[in-house]
């Protein structure tokens, strides 16, 4: 039935499926056809089965201790093959530039001596950790996993919104979304070649093992998690499971004499590579927060003496600092000698007179941020500010033009999303994931598409009512038409985590057998044996709070107008 799509209209933003005239874009033809054929009831059923699958399998997102199902919308986001090539190259380029940048600022800082960026940008960053200055990772890689957030402007350009090179998360949803979709919409996969995503854990493991090669031929890799109360715990377990490595918490590890060990039933076992999902501030009470219960004392010593590799390295935060973001195109030119493949969101540095004039003219339309600010202080969002606030801002900018930048409020592109049995456009962004093995930067085809579910909402952060979509990167080979009777979903032969099955319904119990009359029990003395109840260590409120606090750096940050 064509009902669902006849009323679908793109808004002011770029719609991924239909253009301004309402014509369906080539990459979306198959999806459009499938949607066109389906009735609202059918779609609703698919949506419900997707939701149920996730609840039963425990694919949830922890918000403040409450597990909520992570909404997966059934309409995928589709990316044409040629466009993906550009995105892939752009993401890889950014990772390479930031790698060079990190190696530089934790050593000689040529980039400062050559005047490319001001020294203050580094020295005033709270993520610039002097405790790891001078440390060189074994194979030179600091950004083993990166998540580069991309958006599409109303003009149709893809831009980088933000780099995430500390503890980027969300890749587990990419994999579970894919396996859920394969189960729910097998026909869609039958009609097109879509690049698989299940290879991610193998790529990551290979990169981690490569990082451990300077230490030993057969490195032992572990995943370090803050614990069950962390919002991304599901991802930690999934990655450990699909890579086939141990999942550990801080207290399972011990650092002695620059080597790291884990406590097993067979005694202490050496660990060579730690894929750590614990923030820098918590990772080692010796050099960082001394009250941290999630880290391992002595870890920085072990990193410095080369006894262990941390992925990602400590101190990466200086590279995804929002202030450095404005300089990344310059860093690409400086370190790689290349032009940026994907541009930043337009940013005006207000020390430039022409830029300043334009910005001050449109102050109520733009987002103005202090260059020297941190933690979002001093950011003014034009459309939401009062005239008095804007006047004050104007004065501050004129007094110190060097200290401000401005960005437009970006209208993210939209994709049809099932809202109350209707398909409506909702804003999306994209976070592709890149794995750096040292030899190459591999980008997972697609990535996490986050969608803001409330109408018009631009903030897609999952903790504020967001959801996700499966992301399909079409293969370079031609689409298969339904006429070709090849194996259907077999092209997507992936070792995906098995699609969760519906829970077995408890059977109707049989009628209880009749019993002969039995005398009551007489009073009994209490037994001596101790009923051993177990208190789990993680119940301690402080540990739980620290695990939850990790959320800030770990959760996929939302873009939108308040990107700070």
């Amino acid at each position, binding site marked *: 039935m064509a009902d669902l799509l006849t009323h679908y209209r793109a808004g002011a933003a770029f719609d991924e499926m239909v253009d301004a005239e309402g014509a369906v874009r080539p990459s979306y033809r198959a999806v459009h056809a499938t949607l066109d054929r389906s009735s609202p009831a059918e779609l609703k059923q698919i949506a419900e089965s997707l939701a149920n699958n996730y609840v039963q399998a425990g694919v949830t997102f922890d918000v403040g201790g409450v597990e909520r199902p992570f909404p997966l919308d059934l309409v995928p986001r589709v990316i044409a093959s040629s466009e993906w090539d550009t995105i892939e190259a752009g993401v890889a380029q950014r990772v390479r530039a930031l790698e060079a940048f990190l190696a530089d600022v934790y050593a000689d800082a040529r980039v400062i001596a050559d005047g490319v960026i*001001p*020294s*203050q940008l580094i*020295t*005033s960053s709270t993520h610039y950790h*002097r405790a790891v*200055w*001078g440390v060189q990772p074994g194979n030179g890689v600091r950004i083993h996993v990166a998540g580069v957030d991309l958006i599409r402007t109303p003009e149709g350009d893809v831009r980088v919104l933000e780099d995430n090179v500390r503890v980027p998360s969300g890749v587990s949803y990419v994999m579970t979304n894919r396996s859920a979709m394969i189960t729910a919409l097998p026909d869609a996969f039958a009609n097109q070649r879509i690049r698989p995503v299940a290879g991610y854990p193998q790529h990551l493991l290979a990169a981690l093992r490569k990082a451990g090669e300077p230490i030993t031929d057969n490195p032992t890799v572990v995943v370090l998690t803050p614990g069950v109360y962390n919002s991304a715990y599901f991802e930690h377990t999934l990655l450990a499971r699909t890579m086939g490595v141990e999942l550990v918490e801080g207290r399972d590890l011990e*650092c*002695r*004499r*620059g080597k790291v060990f884990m406590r097993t039933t067979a005694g202490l076992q050496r660990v060579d590579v730690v894929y750590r999902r614990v923030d820098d501030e918590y990772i080692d*009470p*010796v050099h960082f927060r*001394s009250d941290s219960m999630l880290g391992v*004392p*002595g870890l920085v*010593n072990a990193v*410095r*003496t080369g006894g262990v590799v941390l992925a990602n390295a400590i101190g990466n935060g200086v590279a995804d600092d929002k202030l450095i973001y404005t300089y990344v195109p310059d860093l690409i030119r400086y370190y790689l000698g290349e032009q940026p493949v994907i541009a930043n969101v337009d940013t005006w540095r207000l020390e430039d007179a022409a830029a300043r004039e334009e910005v001050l003219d449109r102050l109520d339309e733009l987002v103005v941020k202090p260059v020297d600010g941190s933690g979002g202080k001093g950011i003014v969002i034009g459309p939401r500010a009062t005239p008095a606030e804007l006047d004050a801002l104007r004065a501050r900018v004129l007094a110190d033009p*060097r200290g401000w930048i401005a960005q437009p409020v970006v209208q993210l592109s939209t994709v049809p999303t099932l809202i109350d049995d209707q398909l409506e456009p909702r804003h999306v962004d994209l976070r592709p994931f890149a794995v750096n093995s040292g030899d190459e930067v591999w980008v997972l085809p697609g990535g996490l598409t986050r969608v803001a579910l409330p109408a018009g909402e631009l903030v897609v952060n999952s903790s504020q009512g967001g959801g996700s979509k499966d992301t399909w990167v079409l293969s370079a080979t031609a689409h298969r038409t339904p006429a070709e009777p090849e194996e259907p979903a077999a092209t997507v032969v992936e070792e995906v985590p098995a699609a969760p099955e519906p829970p077995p319904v408890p059977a109707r119990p049989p009628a209880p057998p009749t019993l002969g009359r039995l005398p009551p029990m007489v009073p009994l003395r209490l037994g001596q044996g101790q009923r051993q109840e177990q208190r789990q260590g993680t119940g301690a409120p402080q540990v739980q709070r620290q695990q939850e606090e990790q959320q800030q750096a770990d959760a996929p940050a939302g873009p939108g107008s308040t990107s700070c």
Partner: protein
Amino acid sequence: MRLNIDHQTGFRYASPVKSSYNEARMTPAATEHQTIWSSRVSIEPAAWSFSYTDYWGTRVTSFELHEPHERLTVSAQTVVDTHGDDLTWDTDRRVAPGDLGWPALRDRGVIDKMAEYLTVNRRTAPSAELAALAAEVADRPPRLAALDVCAILGARLRYERGSTEVTSAAEQVWELGRGVCQDYSHVALGALRSIGLPARYVSGYLHPGPREPNTTVTGESHSWIEWWCGSWVAYDPTLGRRLTDSYVRVGHGRDYGDVAPLRGTYSGGSSEMFVTVGLTELG
């Protein structure tokens, strides 16, 4: 003068500690004012250790203990030749030819490069009163302004042990009116930075006198400051004078936290610190 320094410091724990991770910054570095002949750090009980040079250029000995112990002792022994600052610029109130003026110090590029030494934190933030007093003397050349700022705090503070702690902040110290060299240095840093003079914290040793060859004198782990007005100028705010050859420099940082002689992280109960420094002029 040629000096032998014996610096012993450590912790006494209330109950045995099974595991501790420590860093010692007790190794003087060669500068234009001092030459190092030998320098050795030893630890008791025996520990696994390694050395590296940190971000501030200070030599660090990092060590771990994994056997239960109730007492940790780090001993650093150094033989060094020191040369003092012979020009009597402080008593003569003389500006050096290479000194920059205030406009140069306010240059964007300078502020950018010196940002770390212009930022104050909890430890160094000056009280409003001190900042106002410092602003009053900021009308003269930077070097002289710095001298006068130090004079202000020298007049206000009295040297006294035991009234402050390792974690005390400059504002508290100013209110209290008393402190040790670490406190004088923090107060001075905050005041100087507030008038736009980059300044850094220096850690080292001081031979208090009397000067008698081959006699061991009890000295101290001392701290002073350096400000920048075109070059780094060393000055001792506690004693109110420029450096003589009685000073041995270990390293510098933004405040005490960047150059603490010994820092230890352990799991357990309470600890008590001890420090003894013996200096011998080698004749």
